[in-house]
């Protein structure tokens, strides 16, 4: 096992560069967070506002999906490279999940 990585010292510039990159990324993540909070607020107000469920339900579901995608891509770094397998299996799982939920809300009606 363990083809151990040789620990390479990064050059100064490389190091600084990655530092800056992750700091940037961190800022992006804080923005993401703000958006997520915002989306949550919209969802809750939509329900409080007492619109017709036919309107509210699709909206809040959409908001949930957006929020989850943000979690996956920004917090869990699914956009980074090296996540091909992660993506494939997570979306396959989501596909099975979708089918399951779909049948349970359609053909178990009694």
């Amino acid at each position, binding site marked *: *096992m*363990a*083809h*151990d*990585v040789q*620990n*390479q*010292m*990064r050059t*100064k510039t490389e*190091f600084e560069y*990655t*530092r800056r990159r*992750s700091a940037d*990324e*961190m800022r992006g*993540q*804080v923005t993401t*967070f703000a958006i*997520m*909070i915002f989306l*949550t607020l919209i*969802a*809750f107000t*939509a*329900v*409080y506002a007492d619109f017709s*469920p036919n309107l*509210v*339900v699709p909206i*809040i*579901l959409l*908001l*949930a999906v957006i*929020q*989850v995608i943000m*979690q*996956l891509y920004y*917090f*869990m770094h699914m956009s980074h490279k*090296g*996540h091909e*397998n*992660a993506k494939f*299996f*997570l979306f*396959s*799982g*989501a596909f*099975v*999940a*979708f089918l*399951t*939920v779909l*049948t*349970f*809300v359609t053909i*178990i009606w009694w």
Partner: protein
Amino acid sequence: MDLNTKYTPQSWPQHAENSTLEGKNKFVGFWLFLGGETTLFASLFATYLALKNKGPEGMEFTTQELYQLPLVFIMTMLLLTSSLTSVYAMYHMKNYNFKAMQAWLMITVLLGAAFLGFEIYEFNHYVHEGFNYSQSAFSSSFFTLVGTHGLHVLIGLGWFILLMLRNSKRGLNLYNAPKYYIASLYWHFIDVVWVFIFTVVYLMGVAG
């Protein structure tokens, strides 16, 4: 891999979470596990949706009467924030700043514990109102879905605490960095599930 290797922020690999084969394996394996968890929660969600508001003849509880959105809102905020704090922790792990990482994790744990506290309060409240586990198919499916999520939170907390304790003396190395990383993935996944819970269970429950 040698546990005694001492790193500086500069020599610390950029992707410490999967820079060893063990790390890579853990990383991929854990993502796959999350894929499986997706179908697990889907089954629970599906069951809940099929049994929502279903109970014995003349059942008195419906989603509309039961759920209290303010509480759910607070819980949501707590969990969302804890997701961010764990991102902070991972940021510091990347920078080889062990102390800061532990600190942010500590905050994450506190937020998670607060969430769990509210959840326990909520369950307790329902049970007192008579909406207990065996009251109806609806109650069984509600407690099982939300409770399974709660259990995940609990496991996540335990995991973080265990990691923080066992490594407090050892510091960060390539053996435990992947563990921290996947624990935080787990935490995000818990948040993902919660997003669906507050939407599908609570908001859709109240909206109709």
